[in-house]
């Protein structure tokens, strides 16, 4: 190292200084000749000793503080490096889409465009089948305690997100749904399997919904909810009585749908489907634009041409449904309730900044723009690599919405978040020896028991 040689130099320089004269003007008689030879050797020897000693000390010190790389690399560093590489390899493998079974079945049979895609064999008597099943199985009724049985369905892809932040928000979103559904007696199905390779992506919900309907005749309503939608009103309940004559409830605006033919007239991120023949028929008619490949691309072009404001990309389920509603209005629309009196789907951008205002002025249970039922983070795509909006805005807003809802859950337990972007909580009510008085006051299930109470 540089310092070493410097030291040696210094030492050498120092040694040189003790050797014969540096001074040119001195007489020929040098200092060393004054000394006997033995002394001279002794002196040199001493100098060398000191040189070696100092050099040794320097090396030790430098080695201790800097290390000398591959000359004397410590064992633990090498082991750690190996562990890091090994870990990264494992993580990359987990995150990639590679599957150990790809080697066994290298190619699935190619999709034949001449055959129209179907979700399954046509069923025509589902209503009767279902009714007779319910009659035969009275311990699996479709109405429990006067309320229709609802199944909330959501899901995410089976592999890790491109980024760990995405997985973290998927986790928070499912916790949010678990909380709402526990308070309202709704069951959850979280899907992580691609049931149909052709209907992948946003179309994956169609075969899933159909499958669940047919397997669970005791379920009256299937509620699909996107993984990026959060409940923000824990008290509000979907007013199912309003939809007695309808089979589908979807958030949207009729004028945008029929007059403007806008591609965002309704939102398929949160909607309800009754378990009946009509729904199966609608699914069958909805599916054909879905199959991946030339069908979906071609359908995308048709949709872009017919719907206002739609960018050019492959067919998505929402545009396809709107197109269906518009083109076959008479067939379907009398059983579809286009709901906008509360936010069955609430577009996040207009809502998240107003949470503080809402907390000040209003209260949970309203479900509308004063206290939105659902805040839906369309376009944020935290599970991918890029979203349509700045990352910071998306994540901060999702955190705020999550905490806004979590505060409503924690209220029963006497806690609240320390701010809408804080993960820490603080006490808002001291512990007491009679906790049940607060349970009666604050438990959301108890308060709604009093207000509902209608029989089936």
């Amino acid at each position, binding site marked *: 190292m540089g310092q070493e040689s410097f030291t040696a130099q210094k030492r050498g320089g120092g040694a040189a200084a003790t050797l014969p004269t540096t001074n040119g003007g001195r007489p020929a008689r040098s200092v060393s000749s004054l000394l006997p030879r033995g002394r001279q050797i002794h002196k040199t020897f001493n100098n060398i000793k000191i040189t070696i000693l100092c050099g040794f000390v320097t090396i030790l010190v430098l080695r201790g503080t800097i290390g000398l790389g591959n000359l004397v690399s410590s064992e633990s560093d090498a082991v750690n490096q190996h562990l890091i590489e090994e870990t990264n390899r494992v993580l990359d493998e987990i995150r990639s889409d590679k599957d150990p079974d790809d080697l066994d079945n290298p190619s699935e049979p190619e999709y034949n465009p001449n055959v129209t895609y179907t979700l399954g064999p046509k069923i025509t008597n589902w209503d009767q089948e279902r009714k007779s099943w319910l009659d035969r199985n009275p311990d699996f009724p479709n109405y429990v305690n006067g309320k229709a049985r609802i199944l909330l369905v959501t899901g995410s892809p089976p592999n890790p997100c491109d980024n760990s932040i995405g997985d973290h928000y998927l986790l928070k979103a499912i916790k949010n749904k678990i909380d709402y559904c526990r308070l309202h007696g709704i069951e959850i199905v979280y899907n992580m399997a691609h049931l149909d390779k052709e209907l992948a992506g946003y179309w994956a919900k169609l075969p899933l919904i159909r*499958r669940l309907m047919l397997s669970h005749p005791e379920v009256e309503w299937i509620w699909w909810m996107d993984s990026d939608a959060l409940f923000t009103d824990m008290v509000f309940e979907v007013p199912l009585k309003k939809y007695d004559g309808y089979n589908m409830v979807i958030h949207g605006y009729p004028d945008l749908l029929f007059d403007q033919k806008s591609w965002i007239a309704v939102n398929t991120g949160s909607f309800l489907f009754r378990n009946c023949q009509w729904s199966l028929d609608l699914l069958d008619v909805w599916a054909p634009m879905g199959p991946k490949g030339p069908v979906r691309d071609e359908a995308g072009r048709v949709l872009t041409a017919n719907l206002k404001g739609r960018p050019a990309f492959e067919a998505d389920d929402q545009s396809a449904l709107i197109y269906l509603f518009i083109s076959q209005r008479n067939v379907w629309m009398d059983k579809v309730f286009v709901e906008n009196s509360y936010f069955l789907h609430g577009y996040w951008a207009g809502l998240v900044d107003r949470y503080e205002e809402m907390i000040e002025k209003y209260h949970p249970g309203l479900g509308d723009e004063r206290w939105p039922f659902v805040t839906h983070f369309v376009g944020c795509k935290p599970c991918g690599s890029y979203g349509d909006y700045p990352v910071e805005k998306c994540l901060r807003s999702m955190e705020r919405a999550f905490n806004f809802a979590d505060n409503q859950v924690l209220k029963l337990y006497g806690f609240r978040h*320390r701010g809408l972007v804080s993960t820490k909580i603080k006490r808002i009510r001291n512990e007491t020896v009679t906790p049940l008085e607060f349970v009666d006051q604050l438990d959301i299930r108890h308060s709604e028991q009093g207000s509902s109470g209608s029989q089936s």
Partner: protein
Amino acid sequence: MTESWFGQRRRRQLQRFLQKGKLTILCLFLTIIVLRGNLGAGKFGTPETDIEEIRETFSFYRKRVEPRRVLEEAETIKNDDASASGNNYATFDINKMFVDEEGDDIKPDPNKPYSLGPKISDWDEQRGDWLKRNPNFSNFIGPDKPRVLLVTGSAPKPCENPVGDHYLLKSIKNKIDYCRLHGIELFYNMALLDAEMAGFWAKLPLIRKLLLSHPEVEFLWWMDSDAMFTDMAYEVPWERYKDRNFVMHGWNEMVYDEKNWIGLNTGSFLLRNCQWSLDILDAWAPMGPKGKVRDEAGKVLTSALKGRPVFEADDQSAMVYLLVTEKDKWAEKVYLENHYYLHGYWGILVDKYEEMMENYHPGLGDHRWPLVTHFVGCKPCGKFGDYPVERCLKQMDRAFNFGDNQILQMYGFTHKSLASRRVKRTRNETSNPLEVKDDLGLLHPAFKAVKVSSS
């Protein structure tokens, strides 16, 4: 002559002075280097930073060196244009986003002994009265089926390990599936209720709070986030515990005779909602508070229990110690279950899944088909685990798929293999879906039937 002699002497003195001076300077220099190496010198840096600078000057590729962190990603810097616009999730540091307003809670008085809350002595009466007044919230949802709340949780911040959150997600999906099939309610906790009881002790204040806030719950089932259900058909034999209040997996001999610190496991246990449980929580808590108390307690536990390594007090060892030292008070109502895997240590189970699928069937819950596979020591959310990363994560995938297959078979699918995320059909779609029964009878199982007079 005196003049020249004096000059000589002068010069000799000068020489000697120079010599000594050089030695002094040399030693001073060495001292400075040593001190700089050990203490650092502020903006003048340390030898490590010197090396860094030298490396950076001379090396072609920029590499981030992480000498001690095992499970952090070593990213290569992407030269993306999009990262500049802020739409890229990969470059966002989420920990900068969290802001804690409203200051910290008042620090508890260090002289007062820790308590989970004010002592309640009449919980059984309070709860009994409440249940009478609220017949709609009965503590039994079936003739032999108590109302159960499964409680689990994880930290509110993203995992340090980049795939940790993904495994937490799979784990909660697994629990959602089991609980849906068995009519159990689920509570996922992400809040630290008491900063003193952080880490593995955080479950105690949470459990107490939930017991007191949910009088309708008869049994609270705590389950760690790294435990997965692998037998979807097995129903816990509630009748067996009708006279017991606390059920853990363990062996009586290992706890009471051997005093072994792993004689029982507190990663998955059942606790009845009653006065006795509040009392045992109060007796359990004192070893928990972070800091001196926990460290001291750790030493006590290590000396008292067999096989326990030296570390701070953990809830499991504390429970063993409590049962051993106060056996007369508690043992009568504690049931150490080992006829089925209420907690199943993953190390001895995960390699046998294929064998199990060949020879046995779900619904057994024991060594032939474990109810729970618990990945103790894997710590997928943290930086360091006790086992190699690859083994842990791959086996967690297998356990997840093993359990998921039992769910998918209801709908006619299964995973292509235990290591694969892809699914394949096991039966074709039919036009008479209601005639098809799933093999395990999980679509409409007996333990999910509601009482006939439901309205």
